[in-house]
């Protein structure tokens, strides 16, 4: 090599090295807080140990001042009061339905404001990006994205009574047929319905079943009610099936008072054969020491329609009054926590996948070899992996009732109406008409 060529090569290599190091350094610098003020992060109670560890890592690595605490109780209502009172709150968990409401009240700083927005947008699965976008703005970053209503099966009990894959239902009508067949064969509690007492219990149970059957409840664009009362429609069929199931005496009243933990525990106890559950809880049901059906929990593959609806959580930035420097720090923390850390890795989302198999909205997390390995470790049969991915990728989102300001007001109404419908032997048509009337009332209230 000539001296001139060597010099050129060395110079180029040096520049390349410097630019690479510089990029890492710049990223590191970009995410470092500068205001010296505290960033307040609040969330619901889920694996607070993991969250605390994540926050501690940020504070240590980035010299941050993030204060993390949980909000216990009726989360959407309490969070709304906090936001209304302009509480010290910078980043918080929210479901998309709540986030829309907060956005309309002017309490949310959309993720479009983040410097890495273009990169974030490219990373998100389109169906999730659509679910999380409201009035053209991305409401927050991916905390988890799951399918609530994945039909899980306790294979131990299922096979013990002589059922095989051929008996697995392809749609909700077949689910109910199978329930009664199982009952006839002597299984006392074949089905655990999504009727539990949380704010996302019975009301979401209705929403997911109706959506799976092809309903929409309200129009995705205009939010006008689309509920029909014809006997072959998804709404009537859902309530008719519920009424029959309730009157069969197979469902204990205590289901209505279960919290989420109680609902998961009930299925993990091994007493039930089928239940619509959170997709990532398959890991919980198959975990030895945690579940009595460990190693025996499978799922019903997608048939005529997808199972469940998108249930997701976002990291949302508040829009409270604060200094510009602090707002910049909030954006940095949200970017670090909800997207990429100082090393350019989507570390938090990947960590959730490893810890609790929480699915992410980011392609590179869901399509990584670590994720594939993690999911395969949690499932009962190899074929469940493809079934999980197929269900996940096809899960619908009830945009008509969740991407609208009144979502969190309609939800408690639905919860109370559906419980009363079952307990008081309500009339199907009257119940559906009451839902339509409520949506019209809410649209009127908000001038929609």
């Amino acid at each position, binding site marked *: 090599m000539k001296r001139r060529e060597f010099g050129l090569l060395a110079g180029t290599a040096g520049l390349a090295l410097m630019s690479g190091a510089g990029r890492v350094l710049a990223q590191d610098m970009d995410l470092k807080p500068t205001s010296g003020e505290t960033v307040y992060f609040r969330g619901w109670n889920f694996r607070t140990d993991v969250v605390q560890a994540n926050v501690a890592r940020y504070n240590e690595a980035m010299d941050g001042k993030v204060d993390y605490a949980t909000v216990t*109780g*009726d989360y959407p209502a309490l969070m709304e*009061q906090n936001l209304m009172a302009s509480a010290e709150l910078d980043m918080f968990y929210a479901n998309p339905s709540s986030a829309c409401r907060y956005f309309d009240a002017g309490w949310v700083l959309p993720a479009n404001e983040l410097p890495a927005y273009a990169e974030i947008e490219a990373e998100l699965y389109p169906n999730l990006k659509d679910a999380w976008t409201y009035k053209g703005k991305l409401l927050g970053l991916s905390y988890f994205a799951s399918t609530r209503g994945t039909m899980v099966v306790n294979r131990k009990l299922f096979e013990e009574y002589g059922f095989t894959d051929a008996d697995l239902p392809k749609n909700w009508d077949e689910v109910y047929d199978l329930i009664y067949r199982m009952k006839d064969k002597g299984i006392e509690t074949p089905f655990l319905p999504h009727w539990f007492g949380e704010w996302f219990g019975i009301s979401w149970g209705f929403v997911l079943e109706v959506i799976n059957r092809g309903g929409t409840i309200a129009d995705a664009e205009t939010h006008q009610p689309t509920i029909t009362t014809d006997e072959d429609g998804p709404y009537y069929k859902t309530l008719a099936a519920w009424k029959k199931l309730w009157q069969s005496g197979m469902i204990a*009243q*205590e289901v209505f008072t279960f919290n989420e933990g*109680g609902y998961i525990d009930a299925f993990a106890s091994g007493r039930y054969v089928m239940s619509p559950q959170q997709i990532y809880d398959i890991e919980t049901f198959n975990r030895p020491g945690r579940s009595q059906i460990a190693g025996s929990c499978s799922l019903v593959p997608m048939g005529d329609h997808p199972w469940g609806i998108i249930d997701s959580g976002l990291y949302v930035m508040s829009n409270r009054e604060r200094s510009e420097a602090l707002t910049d720090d909030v954006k940095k923390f949200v970017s670090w926590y909800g997207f990429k850390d100082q090393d350019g890795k989507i570390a938090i989302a990947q960590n959730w996948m490893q810890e609790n198999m929480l699915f992410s909205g980011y392609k590179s997390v869901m399509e990584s070899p670590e994720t594939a390995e993690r999911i395969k470790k949690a499932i009962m049969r190899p074929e469940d992996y493809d079934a999980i991915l197929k269900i996940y990728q096809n899960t619908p989102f009830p945009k008509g009732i969740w991407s609208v300001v009144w979502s*969190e*007001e309609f939800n408690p109404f639905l919860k109370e109406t559906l419980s009363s419908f079952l*307990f008081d032997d309500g009339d199907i048509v009257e119940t559906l008409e009451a839902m339509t009337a409520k949506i019209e009332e809410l649209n009127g209230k908000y001038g929609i």
Partner: protein
Amino acid sequence: MAVGSAGQAIQASTPSRKPRREMSDTRFAFLIGLPVLVFLMLVVAYPLGYAIYMSLHQIVFFGGYRANFVGLKNFIDVWSDKSFINAIWITLRFTVESVVLTMILGLCLASIMNQRIRMAGLVRTLLFLPWCVSSYAAGLMFGQLVRGQTGILTTISFTFGGTQGVDLMGRATVVEVLAVANAWLMAPLVAFFLLANMKTIPKRLYDLAAIDRLTAWETFRYVTLPPLQFTLFVFASITTVLSMKMFDMILIMTGGGPGTASATLTYQIYKRSFKDLNLGYGAAMSFYLLFFILGATFLIYLVWGRRVSR
């Protein structure tokens, strides 16, 4: 002149020697109480006034804050709300059961503590502990205890070969379960006040009762109970108010369910105000709760308090 001067001097000095008129008791009490009154004005009158304002308005937060005057509409609409009527009955049932259970349990605990027992101090401490537990924690604990899935009765049932869980969270029994949990929380305080009262009963009355060969029940009925009447009346009133106001335990334990089986007035007020964000309607409901509380305590005073406080 000297005399005159002296007399004038005496006259001149008389007014200053005249003793200053003492402040009346009422005035003194008013002055002493003034800071408290000012404090109460700030912490009670303002929220109360704001609640009245809200109850006469329809408050909208989204799409810009608006408060539209609606007069008494919220107060009138409440009466055509089935959930409100239902909540009144549930509250009544819960309150009556809570008060009766609390009084009985308090009386039993006080009677036990009034006996000469070994390690009396330890027993008293243990019996007082439930009062120290927050109603939130009590709600969590009782929720676990009475559910079919995790409950103690299910454990007992399974231990003795049963195959079915025992669920007390059903519509038929959920209010009674809440009343038991509420009584568990409040009874220790009642018991300690009753115990203090029992300690003031002269021992010779019990000696006389023994000479008259009264049975244990008769001794309790004619010697112990009469001096406790006033304390029982006071605590019946207090527990009535506390029960009608109870919220956090109900929210945690049952969330107003199953269905609306345990949705008391406080739960409905919370739901209307903070979930439906209908603050005006919720405020109107809360005034009805206030009237019911005042009415209930006045009724207790009329039928019981007037007699025992003489």
